[in-house]
């Protein structure tokens, strides 16, 4: 398997082999190509690709102007993140207090990061322009026609279609996912928090926050380990119970003797169709000490005092898992129904002949078969549960919270991260928590993803 894999990989690499590399451009490029390394687009203009050349030159001029205007300043402020505080100064001339303009470390960090990314982007274009100049040079010596601008543009609809189609989505992903992530990650190495009044001016502090979070003796560290523990317990229970119970429900509904299959299915699907935040808010209201569930149980005489569904730590933990079952079981049921019907009937028949009862059949045949087929689904569910913000935040809000703690007893890493940043303004610790959440997820899922068949043999069915 792995040999076959390697072959596919190396084949894919050789498919994209091109003689127009940076190395060749440096060693074999002529004078025009060399000048193009300084004046972008020069090589193209010299070879009558005027539109393309001007295009490259435009980028170079824009970048240089930007760097002179603000880029160099942005980069120079990045190491210190500014140090001038805003001050109130008595102005004799005007007879009033005026405020001097202070530094804002957050903006300096953001601008600095943006400048670095623009520089990286510029370098990519620079490399492309040099390669393009070298290609134009080779084409001229070999007597091959050089594309003009119109031909280049039409190629965007054919062999370069991916550039056209991916330009928009990639810009979106860069601007709203990648840059913010890098920005947040860099915050983990600063002391940007309300602790010590570092909300406007803050500094780089290296790995200090990471040490603080991992330290058992620090209050933040203790909270981290207990929240991490609960997050893992939650994810395992929420995923495992949902998976098994959803499957059992699907089996029961699909039994040969069950009447009104579509009616039962409808009852359960109804709960998925309602927006999750609506059903969770309803659940929260119903589970209050004076909510509908307690009122109903009291009027039936089952209990005297209200049950502390979301107010006692242990009750709350069980409650969120159970409510999550309510949310998740119908989903699993929908997902597995089709696959269940694909299990070979002979397996069940031979089990029946051997006298196996329903439980043995389930654990010996159904579950192993399903696990084999649906491992990627289970992994995705596990990651989703580690990141399950909605259920916890809308249902319990992470409560009950012990006095003086930043995290409640049902807080997951993600809801704690939210509280630390949005509510309590410990941005530095929040960023560290985010990174650790990522590490937990990455370790679990990347290994598992790579071992699944669908990743390895992506093109098997094409």
């Amino acid at each position, binding site marked *: 398997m792995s040999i076959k894999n390697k072959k596919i990989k190396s084949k*894919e690499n050789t*498919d*994209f082999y091109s003689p127009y590399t940076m190395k060749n451009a440096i060693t074999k490029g002529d004078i025009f190509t060399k000048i193009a390394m300084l004046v972008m687009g020069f090589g193209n203009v010299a070879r009558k690709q005027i539109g393309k050349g001007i295009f490259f030159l435009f980028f170079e001029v824009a970048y240089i102007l930007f760097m002179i205007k603000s880029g160099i300043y942005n980069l120079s402020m990045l190491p210190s993140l500014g140090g001038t505080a805003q001050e109130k100064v008595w102005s004799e001339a005007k007879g009033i207090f005026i405020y001097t303009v202070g530094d804002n470390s957050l903006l300096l960090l*953001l601008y600095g990061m943006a400048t670095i990314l623009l520089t990286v982007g510029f370098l990519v274009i620079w490399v492309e322009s040099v390669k393009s100049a070298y290609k134009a040079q080779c084409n001229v010596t070999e007597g091959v026609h050089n594309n003009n601008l119109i031909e280049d543009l039409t190629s965007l*609809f054919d062999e370069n*279609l*991916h550039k*056209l*189609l*991916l330009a*928009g*989505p990639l810009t*979106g*992903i860069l601007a*709203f*996912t990648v*840059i*913010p992530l890098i*920005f947040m990650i860099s915050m983990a190495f600063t002391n940007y928090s309300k602790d010590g009044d570092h909300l406007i001016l803050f500094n780089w502090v290296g790995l200090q926050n990471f040490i603080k979070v991992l330290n058992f003796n620090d209050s933040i560290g203790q909270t981290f380990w207990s929240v991490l523990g609960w997050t893992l317990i939650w994810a395992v229970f929420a995923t495992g119970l949902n998976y098994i119970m959803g499957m059992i429900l699907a089996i*029961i509904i699909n039994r040969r*003797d*069950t009447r009104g299959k579509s009616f039962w299915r409808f*009852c*359960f699907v*109804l*709960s998925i*169709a*309602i*927006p999750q*935040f*609506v*059903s969770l808010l*309803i*659940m*929260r*209201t*119903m589970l209050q000490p004076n*909510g*509908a569930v307690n*009122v*109903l149980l009291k009027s039936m005489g089952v209990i005297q005092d209200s049950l502390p569904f979301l107010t006692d730590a242990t009750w709350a933990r069980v409650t969120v898992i159970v409510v999550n079952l*309510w949310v998740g079981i119908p989903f699993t049921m929908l997902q597995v129904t*089709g696959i269940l019907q694909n299990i070979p009937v002979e397996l069940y028949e031979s089990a029946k002949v051997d006298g196996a009862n329903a439980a043995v059949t389930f654990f010996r045949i159904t579950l192993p078969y399903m696990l084999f087929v649906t491992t990627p689904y289970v992994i995705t569910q596990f990651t989703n549960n580690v*990141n399950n*913000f*909605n259920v916890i*935040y809308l249902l319990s809000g992470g409560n009950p919270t012990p006095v003086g703690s930043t995290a409640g007893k049902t807080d997951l890493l*993600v809801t704690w*991260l939210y509280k630390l*940043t*949005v509510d309590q303004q410990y*941005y530095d610790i929040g*960023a560290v928590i985010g990174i650790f*959440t*990522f590490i937990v997820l*990455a370790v679990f*899922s*990347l290994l598992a993803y790579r071992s699944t068949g669908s990743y390895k043999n*992506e093109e098997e*069915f094409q």
Partner: protein
Amino acid sequence: MMKKTTKNSMGVKRRVTNVFVHLFLTVMAAIWVFPVFWVVLTSFSGQIGSYVSSFLPKTYTLDNYKKLFTETAILNFPLMFKNTLIIAVFTCIISTFFVLSVSYCMSRLRFKVRKPFLNIALILTLFPGFMSMIAVYYILKVLGLSEGAMIRVALILVYSGGSGLGFYIAKGFFDTIPKALDEAALLDGATKWKVYTKITIPLSKPIIVYTILTSFLSPWLDFIFAKVICRANASTYTVSIGLWKMLEKEYINDWFTSFAAGAVCVSIPIAALFIYMQRYYVEGLSGGVKG
């Protein structure tokens, strides 16, 4: 004789199991339908306030719905509905285009950065989605999109900006369309653009409908992004923040039953779309061209 008794006892056993199974399903279905049933009843309840003394409302009225749509001074539900609708329409157009483009490129076109992109996309989806939220907020602020009516633009950008990463399902669908079709068209001199628009897209109705509906629904279902970006700007609230606000301490007594009414109003269209979408989802998963 002997045979008949065993057959009878088998039948009895089966009947007992069947009764048991149906009872079990009834109880389970009741648990699942119960909250839905309760919120519909509450939305018609004549008693104001969230602390109920009885499970079923004592009087029924339509006032809660009337209040929801006419009392706009404190919580302007019609405006929230309009906001969400506008945001949803634009998000839907942009996201659908992004998702289909990325999926097609990943499924059909072969280029140098394809594999790296697939791996990076996988890694990016592992970060908690709103970890970058604060950063996005500051970026929007620098761009001047964090105040007033521009918040709507900001929300559209936030919902559709990263949508290109959600290409897995559509890519899986495109993977099932036979490559022979593309190759035949390419041999006939069609450009790849023509193949994309004239062959792949027309064959992909289920997955396109699915993509359109999911991206249309996301602004209705999202709560957290809207909350961080809107902050205190009540004029740009979406329905989810509005409903959440109604359960805040200062509003819950006056607004609880209207919350139920609002929940019903929002859920019915979404549920309808969802059930409609489910069909396309199943079709989409089972692949493109059959036979």
